[in-house]
Each structure stands twice: as C-alpha cells, then as structure tokens.
C-alpha cells in the first residue's frame, strides 16, 4: 500500500465546522495536503482513534466532550497510549425561538425543569408534570403551550443540558429535596431530576440543528436548543433567550457568566507525529492565535475562544501526552 500523506481527522460533528475551517486554511498555506476531516460523532471518532496505531487508523479525533476513563483504557489496550489532549475552546448552548413568535426572551433553569421534568413535586408529593403552558411554569413567561425541541440522547449537548439546566433547575426549585424526601435515594433523585417528560411536550431531536430550526420554523410556540455558532448564523430567523439573566455571547461564555457551555477537544495520536506528514503542523496551526484566537476565524464563526489558549499551544508544541501533563 502506498503511504498515506494527508492527516486524517474524525469525530464530533460539533467540532467539524471548526476543524474544517482550519483544515481549509492549512491546505491553503502549507505544502501539506489538506487534512481530511470526517464527521460521525465523538463516539465513533474516538473509537476509530483507539482502534490502534498505524496508517489505516486516524490521527486526530475530535470530541465535544472529554475522553472517558474507559475509553482511555480501551485505547491503551489497542496500543494507543500516548494521547495529546487539546482543548480548542467552548461551545455555547443557547435557547432560541421563532423570531416573530411569543416573547421567550428570558429563562431560568428552574423554568426548564418545571416545564420538562417527567415528575415534579407538588405539595410534597411526586406527581406527573401537570404544567401545560409556560405561564404555568413562570407567570412572567407567555401563556403559550409548552413545546420544546431538545437534543436527542445521542447528542453530547443533551448531557450538558441535563446537567446544567435541568439538574440546576431541579435543585433551584427544591424538587431535588422533594424527591429525596419522597424516599428516593441520591441516584434515583438525580435521575428523576433529569428525566424528561414523554407526553409530547418535549421533542427529542436526533438530527442536527438544521432540523431543530426547521421545526421551530413551522411551530411558532416552539423553543429549541442550539449551538451558539448556529444561532449566530441564523439571527434572521431566531431570537435567543437569556439564561439566568445572562445573554449568550462569546464574551459571556468565555468569562463563565453564561452558565450553559461545554468545552470542545481534539485528541492527537502522538505515535503518528513525525510519521504522518503535517500532523504536528496541523495541530499547532489549529490552536495558533491566527486561527483559534479571540479574533481568529474560528471565533468569528462562533467558537468561544479558550482563555487559556497559550497553555494549550504549549501542550501541543511540547507534545505533552495526557498522563504527563494532567
């Protein structure tokens, strides 16, 4: 077999847009061929990443979450032991509705918990969620039927949504305590906090944000969950709501004021550095100020630039693997 001469990247479709912007610029400015960036999800990407070392495996896995313990172990079992973890920035998660729809402009995590939870605590008793309109949840919100489009269980965003919105809301409203009081153990209560009602008020979206947008387009009362970058490209159709009083933007997210966001990563197989032409150069280029800096094209596109970018650059330059640097 002829030797492979381009960098092969796979993984999260959330990271894909950023990776593709970098890859394109990399191909334009370096003598190396343009890297191949595949989509397919963090799981599949990391899985292929961990398949082993060698030409017929990928060099970089994109992930919208940190690699898990079990995955690192699986990797090591297949001989992929030296992994460089690179955090490229943050993805903001925003709540938006139709531009001309009802005034959904300010949410609190507790609103979402009360609107979406499968069970709520009413007068100390755990009952099926009785709330039908947003006004039932919070009198300040429009008296419109609850209809939400949230990421399906395949999406990493769902995890963030559950952790940072539902669970938060659960605790804020005191439902957590109510669950515990009703005799649930810690785990069960947490689970109950994050269980989403199944009566059609909340619709799981297994597709992507385009689908959520299409659904909101045809449903004036719908509220959907989007990535910040997606929202910023579609401000002509969507209006965004504040969460906890903070409007989402790259600044508020970078500063940590806006609560719902998640870090984005890519993982480099150290063993491939020096073997696959351009691999290290690509990784360095990715996190360079030109690309990932606050004024770079990535940030322009919607990536929340990492305040600790310099450290990340150092990690890449020194090829620090996960065990050694963290």
């Amino acid at each position, binding site marked *: 077999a002829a030797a492979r001469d381009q960098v092969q990247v796979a993984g999260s479709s959330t990271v894909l847009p950023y990776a593709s912007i970098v890859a394109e610029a990399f191909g*334009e400015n370096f003598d190396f061929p343009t890297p191949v960036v595949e989509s397919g999800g963090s799981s599949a990407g990391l899985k292929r990443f961990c398949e082993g070392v060698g030409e017929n495996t990928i060099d970089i896995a994109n992930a919208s979450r940190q690699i898990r313990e079990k995955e690192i172990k699986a990797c090591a079992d297949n001989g992929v032991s030296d992994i460089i973890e690179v955090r490229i920035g943050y993805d903001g998660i925003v709540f938006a509705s139709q531009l001309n729809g009802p005034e959904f402009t300010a949410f609190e995590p507790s609103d979402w918990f009360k609107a979406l939870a499968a069970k709520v605590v009413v007068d100390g008793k755990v009952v099926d969620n009785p709330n039908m309109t947003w006004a039932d949840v919070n009198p300040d919100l429009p008296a419109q039927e609850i209809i939400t489009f949230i990421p399906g269980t395949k999406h990493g965003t769902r995890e963030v949504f559950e952790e940072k919105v539902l669970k938060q809301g659960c605790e804020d409203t005191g439902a957590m305590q109510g669950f515990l009081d009703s005799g649930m153990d810690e785990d069960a209560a947490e689970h109950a906090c994050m269980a989403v009602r199944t009566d059609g008020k909340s619709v799981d979206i297994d597709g992507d944000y385009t689908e959520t947008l299409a659904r909101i387009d045809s449903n004036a009362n719908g509220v959907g969950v989007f990535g910040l970058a997606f929202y910023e490209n579609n401000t002509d159709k969507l209006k965004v709501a504040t969460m906890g009083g903070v409007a989402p933007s790259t600044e508020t997210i970078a500063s940590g004021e806006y609560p719902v966001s998640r870090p984005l990563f890519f993982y480099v197989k150290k063993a491939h550095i020096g073997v696959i032409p351009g691999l290290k150069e690509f990784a360095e280029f990715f996190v360079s100020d030109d690309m990932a800096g606050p004024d770079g094209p990535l940030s322009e596109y919607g990536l929340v630039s990492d305040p600790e970018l310099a450290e990340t650059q150092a990690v890449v330059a020194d090829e620090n693997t996960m065990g050694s640097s963290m």
Partner: protein
Amino acid sequence: MTDATNPAGAAPAPKHPSSLLAADVRTKRRNAAEARFKAYGLAAVGIGLIFLVALLFAIIRNGTPAFTQTFLTIPVELPEAKLDKNGNRDPADLSKVTTFGYAPLIEVAVARALEENGIDSPFEKQKDLRNLVSASAPAQLRDYVLQHPDDIGKTIEFRMLASSRVDGYLKGRVTRDSLARDKNLDAEHLDLVDQLQAAGLIKKQFNWAFIFGADASESRPEQAGIGVAMIGSFFMMLVVLALSLPIGVAASIYLEEFAPKNRWTDLIEVNISNLAAVPSIVFGILGLAVFIQFMHFPQSAPLVGGLVLTLMTLPTIIISTRASLKAVPPSIRDAALGVGASKMQAVFHHVLPLAMPGILTGTIIGLAQALGETAPLLLIGMVGFIASNAPDGIASGFLAPNSAMPAQIYEWAKRADPAYYERAWGGIIILLLFLMTMNIIAIILRRRFERRW
C-alpha cells in the same frame, strides 16, 4: 348429461341478454369493477407522478439559486514589498506569505475601488470591508500569484467571490431587516453593495464553480462546489456497476438455474434477501472492519465506498434478477436444450436476454439507491470535510480521499450558514441529473429487450 338445460342454466341473473349493445346487470357491475380497477391503476401512476412533480418542484425552486453566484471584479495591486521581499521570485519564498498576508491586499483593493467609483465608505476601519468579500479571496489571490509570479508588482483585474451574505442579498435571501442582529454584515454594507452593483463591479453570474468546484469550509459557502464530490460518486458508481451487475447476475443465474435445490442453496437464498434488509450503516461497519482495518485499503477512498455500496446493492440486483429469471417460461429452456445447447448456453443465449428488462430495472433501482446513500460512507470516512481537491488521475480517483454527492449534500444541509441550504438543494438537482444520465442507457436498453411471448 347431454341435456342442455342444466343447473347452471338456472343461475341467478339471466345468463345472456338478448343484445350485446346493452350490458346486463352483472356485466355492468363487472364493467364498473373493471373501470374502477383501471382508474385505480391510473390513479396510482398519477399519485406517484404527482409526488414526483411536487418533490421536483420543491427541489428546483430551492436549488436553482445555487447555480448563480455573486462576483466582485476589481483591480488588485500586488506589491512586491509584501509578496516577495527578496525579489527573486523563488517559489519557496513566495509560498511563505500566507493567506493572512494577502487579506490586507484585498481590503485595500476594495477600499480603492470604492474610492475610484466615488462611493463613500461609511466604515472607519478598512477591515470592515472584508466582510463584503468571500474569505476565499486571499487564497485565490495567493494561488494566482504563485502561478503567475511575474505579475508581482503589477495591478491586476481580479475576480473574486462576494461573501455569502452579499450573495444572499442579491438573491433576495438576506434583507436589511434580517441583518439587524447579524454580526457579519450590516445594512451599511448593503448600501455599498447597491452602489457597487450600479457601478458594475458586483455581478451575479452563472456559477460553474458550483458544478465543478470542491467543497469549502463552513465559513465560506459561496466557494463550495459539488464537482469533486461528483467525481467521487462517479468513481464509486464505476466500482458499483463494474462489480455488482456481473456478480449479481452471476449469483442469480447460479441460484436460479444451476443450484441444486437443497438446504445450502435455500440458505444462500434467504441470506440474500436478508442482506437487503440490513440497514445500510451496518454495511459501513462491515466495510470499515473488512476493507480498512483488515485489508488495509486507504480511508475515505471511493474504492472502498464503491465496494461497500456494491455489497449493499447486490441483494437488490440479485432479487430482481432472480425474479425475472423465474418469469421466463421453461419451454424456452426446453427448446434450447432440445437442440443440444448446454444449460449454460441456454441460459446465456435465451433466458438471460429475456430476463434483461428485470435485471436492468434492478440495476436502475440498485444504483439509484447506491448513489443516494450516505450512512455507510459515514463509517469509512467519506462524510465530512474531505473533497478539497479534484483527483489528478484514475488511480487517485479511486484511492485519494473523496466524498460523494449525497454525503456532500447531507453535510451542507447540516451546516449553519443558510447559504448552504440552497447549495444542498442545488446539489440534489445535480445528483438527480447525474442519476438520470446514468439511467438513460439502462432505460433505452431495457426498452429494447422488452417483449411479450
């Protein structure tokens, strides 16, 4: 028994009416049933065609804007000081200047063009003008300079893509209202666009790059084309056609004509129809395991894609081929065997030509399916941002990383920038045209082979 007045003669309705011209009750009923039946048939065809028309209408309406694109043609100065400090035109040195170095040249050129045409820029900073022009412009300019080092130091007339928002404005997708909260472009930009258009510097032109170009990243939809993905699809279809048709027909012939009818062949038969029901993504899993991990074929290669799609298409072709082989009357085989043809000759000379229409139908449907399939490509690495350069030869056409049309369309449909939406539909138009070109030979052949006996 010889009596003509029989029990049947006493049947409910008067059996034969006196006149042929007036139908009796039962015949009327039967004729009504007949008319209904025929109407159902017509309606069925009609329904199918109506849906087709509706779908095609939606596709064409949404997709046609992708075929035009807005371009900005202005003089650009190529200062030697910035591009070739040593002045020796050494390619290695020239290529050290990155696109980031070229971007200011464009901003300057735009500003100067405005000036020369007497248009006031409402912006303080020159940098704000950059958003009028596609992010691809610096790269295009750099490519141009690397190819024409002699033009350094001169001022050239350069045609570049306008940014997708500007393009959207000319196509009516972007309005001043909708820009209210957009951070890329402001209403003031649009005023500039209007003036530039009046000055003839901005024009909407037919977009060949869309048909022949390569994919672009998320941030520059205006540059994205489907051409390279089309080449990917082309090479995949070559593989699929070259493998699945002969293998499929051969397998069907064996099973239908030669195989002893025993458990083993039953097993094969059930297996094949079962393969048809295997979700296509599972073929992707198989392809990844067998072709890439086991056989070490390159990743993201149309060859592997073609092989996976071949496996996926085979059941379709086999099932339809077997069905039409079965439909050939045995008397034809007898006739051939009777004059001393071998079974093989009987099959290849007589049965196969008669079964040809069905085989071709299976091929048409199987290839249509293969051409439109994305899921299995996901796992062998053909979905994403892949096709950045056209392959430079036949071998690299099969082996170099490439995407495929449906994967490209699927990717575009997912992308955030609304400009990609129209491109996705435009891509579908091209896909359908590709499909029809591919089918036309099969359809003509099929019509030729059709006969009743």
